[in-house]
């Protein structure tokens, strides 16, 4: 799978006169990228810039040749997003219908939708959840369904915003295993440092800037040191 590079050029994001991100310049081309940092540091904003959920106040974000300002719709076809609270991400009352929802938005035929839904459920070993009502799912099951609903759209990049925060250890490990198997690029915002140990690159975000960018072990050490300071 060819993964388009993600380019941040002098990106600043302001919310009500406050600089949430300041002049960020980055090129993301690795397959597994982690983003860590304190609460309110700007990690979630950084991740939301990637598929145009947040637009830069200054600067540009490109995914391949597409600009998030001009081509947000096309970019969202290629960049999936898994939110922290899967309960609010699941939109339809039945699991299979929720997974099909994104495919309908892509104008995919009914037959193709059904095939993709079943294939995706089988890929994540959750075929048994197909006919379940969404509100009856456990936290771990909801997170898997949220992942399935993104995977079914076959994006090349998936952004995860603190995906394991609401999961117990067993579900966290299961989720981590599924993420590790993905052929797609995974960009994971997390407080769960263990997840990142096998990653290719980790960014440490502090006060709206990239304080460290490099190997996971070095980034984690930097973040620990910063947290103790």
């Amino acid at each position: 799978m060819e993964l388009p590079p993600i380019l941040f050029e002098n990106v600043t994001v302001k919310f009500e006169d406050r600089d949430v991100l300041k002049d960020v310049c980055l090129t993301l081309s690795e397959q597994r990228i982690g983003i860590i940092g304190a609460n309110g540091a700007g990690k979630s904003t950084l991740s939301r810039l990637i598929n145009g959920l947040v637009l830069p106040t200054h600067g540009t974000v490109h995914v391949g040749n597409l600009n998030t300002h001009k081509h947000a719709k096309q970019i969202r076809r290629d960049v999936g997003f898994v939110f922290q609270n899967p309960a609010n991400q699941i939109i339809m009352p039945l699991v299979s219908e929720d997974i099909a929802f994104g495919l309908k938005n892509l104008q995919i035929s009914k037959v193709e939708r059904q095939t993709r839904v079943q294939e995706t459920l089988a890929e994540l070993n959750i075929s048994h959840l197909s006919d379940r009502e969404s509100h009856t799912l456990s936290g771990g099951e909801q997170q898997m369904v949220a992942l399935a609903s993104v995977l079914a759209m076959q994006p090349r990049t998936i952004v995860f915003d603190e995906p394991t925060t609401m999961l117990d250890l067993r579900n966290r490990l299961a989720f981590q295993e599924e993420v590790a198997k993905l052929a797609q690029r995974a960009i994971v915002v997390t407080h769960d440092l263990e997840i990142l140990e096998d990653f290719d690159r980790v960014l440490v975000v502090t006060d709206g800037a990239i304080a460290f960018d490099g190997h996971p072990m070095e980034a984690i050490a930097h973040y620990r040191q910063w947290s103790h300071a």
Partner: protein
Amino acid sequence: MIASKNRSYLARIRPGWKFGALLVLSIGLYLINSWLILLSIIILSVVLLLTARVDFKQLRMPLLSLAMILSVVFILLGLQTDWTNAVVSVLRLLTMCLLAYSVSLTTSFDAMLELFQQVASPLRFIGANPAQIALGLSMTIRFIPELKKVYLEVREAQHARGLGNNPLAVSVPLVIRSLKIADETAEALDARGYDSASYQR
């Protein structure tokens, strides 16, 4: 009630036909005044429900609630009019509900929304978007249990703080959390490429 996968003969009939038949039968029932004929139609409705291979676990609670409501209707009508009239009215209502269960439990939610969209399509002429209305409807059904969960959490938290019976203490956090859910869900809709203009079921 949301239908889980049902593969009976009723599930294979087009939703438009099923809902149309339900409408015609419901009106037709009001033309029948013989309790004996109504009783035989009820037996047929039960047979229909049994042969439709519906999940009876899903029906337990609605049937219990229905029995309670019908008991009240029966007693009130019996006291105000006469007992034959009460029997006839209750049999009509019961038949309609059983037929409605047979239809709703053998029609997927998706198919119902598709039908709703077709029925509501004339609304386009007054500027309304049937796809948006259908999505709103499905999201309402989806989020009622979530909001109930939030309500219970808030009530529990306020009980723990000794504010259990204060409606303001429950309603304010409930509204704030509901708005947060709405915000996050809107963001999720965006992230999943929802475009109301082009959204077709």
